[in-house]
Every structure is written in C-alpha cells, then in structure tokens.
C-alpha cells in the first residue's frame, strides 16, 4: 500500500489535509482583506492594484497567467478542504446513531460547534461574491477593469452590504476555531507556547473581520465614494 494512501485513508491524514488547505485559504482571505483596504487610497490606486494582480510577474509571466495559477491553486485547496470534510462528516454522522436526551455541551464555544454550518455559508457566499464582483452578472453596473466602481456601486445596496457582513461574521467564527484547530491538527504544540495559539487565532480573526467590514461601513458613511 502506498504511503500516501495510508495517510489519506486515516481520519488524521484527512484532518491534516484540511488544516493545510485551510492554511492556504486563510492566507488568501487575509491578503484579500489587506488588498481591499487599498480602496481607502482611492480609485487610481485600487484599480492599479486590481490590474497588478493580472500583470503580476510580467514580462516573465504572460499577462493573467499568474492570476489563473493562483485561482487554480485556491480552487484545488477548496476542493480538498470540502471533499475531506464531507468524508469526515459522513464518518462522524454515523458515529452516534442515537443522541442524548440531555445535550452534552462541554465544548469551549460557539465557533467549534458551527464549523460545518459556517463552511456552507462561506462557500455559498463565495459563489455569489464571484458573480457579483468578478464575473459581474449579478452586479447592477459592472464595468470591466474598473474594480473601484464595481466595489463602491456594489456595496451601495443595503441588502448586499448586510449579506456581505453576515458572511464575514460567519467567516470570523470559522477562522476562530479553524486557525487554532490547524495548529492542533498539524501537531504544532509546545507546552510553553500552547496558550498563544488561541491568542493568534483570535487576533487574526479580529483583523480579518474588522478589515473586511470597514469597506461596506466606509461606503455607507461616504468615506469611500
């Protein structure tokens, strides 16, 4: 039997893959949040950043190739994250055929109990978000190449901003448990530094949630227009 098969077949191997792909996806949302903050620097800077993502590495890398390689990597990470989750979920689903009359709730918080629900919310939102901001087919006034306009016009709609905010908060809960859980699944523990894993998870969760939420708030209050 090949080593990779032994690894993947194990529930722990799948958890480690969830942690590694989760790390990739977390790295993406964090840099995406930082990139979004460029909206505060004005239309020119923001659009140059959007175009910069397409022309990254030029002339060595042809125009758009870097972005597509990046997207394929992200889609691959998402597929592995979801497939291993579905396989593990099926395993857990059968593990307690009859539940407790009195619910056992010794878990340490809401975030760990809402991982699967949060994941579904996030994936659904990402599908909508791509149609809204990247493809533009559900956007009221989508202009190809004018990311700043698409952002500002897109978030001027109150329901859109509310749905976005709910998704960002769901992402926050997911990251709060997910980042800590990643350290644990990857076996990254040391008696001296263990308590810092929760601190790290909370700090990055707050950074991502606050960073993302500043955009619709700034648009609603006219700071970005």
């Amino acid at each position, binding site marked *: 039997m090949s080593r990779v098969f032994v690894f993947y077949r194990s529930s722990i191997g799948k958890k480690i893959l969830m942690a590694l792909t989760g790390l990739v996806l977390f790295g993406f949302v964090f840099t995406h949040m930082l990139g979004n903050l460029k909206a505060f620097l004005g239309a020119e800077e923001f659009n140059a950043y959007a175009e910069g993502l397409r022309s990254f590495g030029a002339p060595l890398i042809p125009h758009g190739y870097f972005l597509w390689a990046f997207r394929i990597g992200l889609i691959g990470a998402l597929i592995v994250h979801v497939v291993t989750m579905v396989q593990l979920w099926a395993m857990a689903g059968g*593990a307690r055929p009859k539940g407790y009359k009195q619910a056992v709730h010794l878990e340490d918080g809401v975030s760990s109990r809402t991982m699967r629900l949060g994941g579904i919310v996030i994936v659904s939102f990402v599908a909508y978000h791509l149609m809204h901001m990247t493809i533009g087919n559900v956007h009221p006034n989508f202009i190809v190449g004018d990311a700043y306009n698409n952002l500002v016009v897109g978030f001027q709609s109150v329901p859109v901003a509310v749905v976005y905010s709910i998704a960002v908060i769901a992402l926050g809960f997911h990251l709060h448990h997910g980042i800590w859980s990643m350290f644990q699944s990857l*076996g990254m523990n040391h008696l001296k530094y263990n308590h810092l894993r929760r601190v790290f998870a909370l700090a990055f969760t707050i950074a991502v949630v606050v960073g993302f939420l500043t955009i619709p708030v700034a648009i609603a209050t006219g700071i970005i227009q």
Partner: protein
Amino acid sequence: MKITLQVWRQANANDEGRFETYHQGGVNEEMSFLEMLDVLNESLINEGKEPVAFESDCREGICGACGMVISGSPHGPKKAITTCQLHMRSFSDGEEIWLEPWRAKAFPVVKDLVVDRSSLDRIVESGGFISVRTGSAPDANAIAVPKSNADRAFDAAACIGCGACVAACPNASAMLFTSAKVAHLGLLPQGQPERFSRAVSMVATMDQQGFGYCTNHGACQTACPKEISIDLIAMLNRDLAIGALSGA
C-alpha cells in the same frame, strides 16, 4: 433528600429503549452516586422489578468501569472524578437527574446503562508489542528518561479507559483515548522502536471501530476524569503523519 431519576432502560442491544421515572426518597447526601443507585435497585428488587443495570468495580476511581452520562455530563457535573467518586451532596434536594449510557455506535448498549467498550480494547491490542531486552533484570536507571518526559508519559498512562471522552465528544471520537495510549509509550525510550508504526496501526483500528473523527472541540479533556490533555492529540497527529508518510 428526595430526587427524581429519569433512567435509560434498555433490555438489550436490539431493544428500542426508553426513560423510566423513579422518585427516590431517603437519599443521604453522604452517599456516593452508585450507593444511591444501589438503594434504588434494592427497592426495585423488593417490588419484584428488574434492577437498573450499571457497571462498577473498584468504586475508587481507578478502574474505569462506572461511566454514565449524568444530566448531560459524563461522570456527572464535577471535574476530574468518575461516577463512583461523585456524591449526592453535589445535587440539590428535589433535583431531577437524567441517566443515560455512553452513546456511540462503537459502544453498543449491553443493558440499561452498561455499554460494551471492547472497541477500546481492540485499539490497544492493535498497538502490538514493544521491543525490550528480556532475560536478567536490567539495572535500575540503565535507561535515562528525562524528568519532563517521565511526567508526561505518566499523565498519559493515567487513562483508565472509561470512555468518557467518546461519550462527551460531539463526533463520538476516541482520539483522546487513543492519543493517551500512543503517547504513554511514545514518550518513553522503551517505546521508541515501534513508536510510529504503533501510531499508524492504532489509528487505523480506531477508524474501523465506528468512532467519529476529531474536530478539536476539547469536550473530551473537560469530561476526562483523569484530566488528560488534548496536547496528546496534537502529538498523535504528528506521530501518525510521520508514521504514515515514512511507511513505518
């Protein structure tokens, strides 16, 4: 004191099972929880009814036989004790107490509150042997063990295999149990030769028993009467990765 007990009654593994209500008077707050159940059973026997089946052996918290879920908490509401170490003074007069067996596919109900925990034995069995020199008794301290490793190995070895971790886990996962069994040998020099292959085979057996997987909730360590830490789960994850990918 008087209490109301809602007890899970199930004749055998195939029986549907149901809660039955018992109003128990004359409960002394100095009674242990199991003594209170003994009194209940005596009155049931006197009435010609079937007594409530529950497991117990040492009644001093070291054998791991007596687990049950008491009002939503494995081994009851107190931390770091087993059911037999719980006393009725932890409950208030007139309280309604729900008694349920460990609920997991890998722990089929034998009768009432008794479950079959052989699945845990099968995990231990698949750990196999450790390579040690046999023959004349070795000199004391011939193998040096760092103090911190000795302490951590001992903490892991404190696991009594009661199954509270599985009962508490929202996924009915046996990761805390397995990690403790893997760690108490894996932390010692005597356990090194088969350290990684042992982790791989014990996890494979664990996965086959019908337990769920670990989502790092930490409910297990809260429920554990021996306060075993989920740090050992992180160590197991590491050993499994090394073992599986190196072909151990």
